């Protein structure tokens, strides 16, 4: 079953069209990579799926967008959508709380009270993102003091802590060193065993390493999509070929 289905989906900021008639689907239990030049609408696409784009001024959209068979834009409580669809953003930013409370921010709201359970969530999520060993002795320090890469991993832990079914990642590795990038890629691969992972990346090698499907966007449209290997080795569209050979973007 497809986790996310979009058909003829368009989005605007004010009068400016950002997404133009997009029809795609993201397969459950697999990783899909989105590539494309800067400003082509990748972030907007992800933020349309978890319905945070509408927090921006003058956002509007039209078309069909389903997550696990439910029309996202017909759900009244946006909170349910946002919990189901987790997202890690481009800017590494920690909530102004302690490291521990960053992870527990969502779970506490969603009603988890027992201490043992909370402890477990913190350790489990931080371990998953390979941050546990670095911070286990200073969980109560302000998260603002972590490095950029650490913040990015903390962001991922924060999202995992609310157990989303779809995980959207917007260039999650752009401020990480190769070692942690490797760890994150491993993590994503293992997460993809039971959720739908979508990753925006400027690193084509990364897309090649981990993504089953890859999707190429240009100027708000999806130009080409297909199995990663096929797309990279034999792109059908002229523009895709140009992008992969470094001529666009």
């Amino acid at each position, binding site marked *: 079953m497809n986790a996310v289905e979009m058909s003829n989906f368009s989005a605007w900021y004010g009068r400016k069209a950002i997404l133009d008639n997009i029809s795609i689907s993201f397969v459950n239990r697999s990783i899909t990579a989105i590539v494309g030049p800067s400003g082509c609408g990748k972030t907007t696409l992800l933020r349309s799926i978890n319905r945070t784009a509408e927090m921006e001024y003058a956002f509007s959209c039209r078309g069909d967008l389903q997550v696990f068979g439910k029309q996202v834009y017909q759900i009244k409580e946006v909170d349910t959508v946002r919990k*189901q669809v987790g997202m890690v953003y481009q800017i590494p930013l920690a909530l102004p709380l302690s490291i521990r409370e960053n992870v527990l921010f969502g779970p506490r709201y*969603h009603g988890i009270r027992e201490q043992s359970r909370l402890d477990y969530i913190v350790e489990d999520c931080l371990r998953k993102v390979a941050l546990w060993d670095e911070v286990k002795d200073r969980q109560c320090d302000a998260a603002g003091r972590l490095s950029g890469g650490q913040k990015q991993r903390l962001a991922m832990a924060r999202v995992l802590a609310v157990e989303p079914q779809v995980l959207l990642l917007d260039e999650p590795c752009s401020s990480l060193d190769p070692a942690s990038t490797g760890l994150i890629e491993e993590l994503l691969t293992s997460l993809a065993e039971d959720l739908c992972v979508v990753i925006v990346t400027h690193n084509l090698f990364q897309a090649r390493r981990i993504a089953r499907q890859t999707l190429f966007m240009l100027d708000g449209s999806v130009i080409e999509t297909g199995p990663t290997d096929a797309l990279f080795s034999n792109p059908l569209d002229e523009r895709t070929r140009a992008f992969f050979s470094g001529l666009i973007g």
Partner: protein
Amino acid sequence: MFIKTRDKSIAEKLIVAALTTSAIIFGFMLIAILLFMLQESWAVWSEISVWSFLSGTDWRPVAAVPQLGIAAMIASTLWVAGGSLLIAAPLGFGSAVFLAEFAPFWLAAVLRPVLNILTGIPSVVYGFLGAAVLVRYFESSFDLATGESLFAASLVLAIMILPYIISNSESSLRSVPLEYRHAGLALGVSRPYMVWRILLPLAGKGMLGALVLALGRALGETMAVLMLAGNILLFPSSWFSQGEPLPALIALELGSATPGTLHYQGLFAAGFVLLLIVIAINILIHALQHKLKNEVSRF
């Protein structure tokens, strides 16, 4: 899945609804005040015509045949406020330019808090010092029977509104894009020349806005004018005669006016007029700000 999505609780929805309604209610307090004042003064508007209330120069609310006219008070108000702008504007603009362009860093760092503190000093203290020092000085050095006058009130009011003029003008000077300064200086002209020919014209509208804002404050100021203007219900013949601006009239007579009488209603009518003037000024500022924004984006 261990963690279920929590539904927004009813309590939360209620809180948001309550927040919204009460915010709207509080926001509309201005309308409530206006309507209330209109209602309290209604007898005046219906029994005496608006025009004769505004243009009448006699204020004898408790006479056998009551006379209600506030022209003298309006004139005093305008004299005092306008006069204070006249005095404060050059000084204020000068200080603003000084702060934005010429003040050494440390001096600016001292002056800005000073401005803040000056706005914090209560008006009754300004009024008191004005009356105790300035008025006495006028009396002794010009050999006057009384030193109280619209001019004295203007002078003290000028000091009170100076900090507002300075800080608002400074921010409009600072909002002039740096390129203009550089472009000006690159031509090899001196800094004062650049200020005079480039900076001031560009920031002019904003500085005008600062002046209008200060006017709004000056018109409504009570204590200083009460203690300095002389409180005489005559039409002021010049800046140096005595008078009683509207706020002073209200402050002085409200306690002695029996509710329900024409006197009481007349005071509310006077307050209503003052309020309308000040609100009109505020809307003017709002419009001015919008216009300003448009212009900057047009550059």
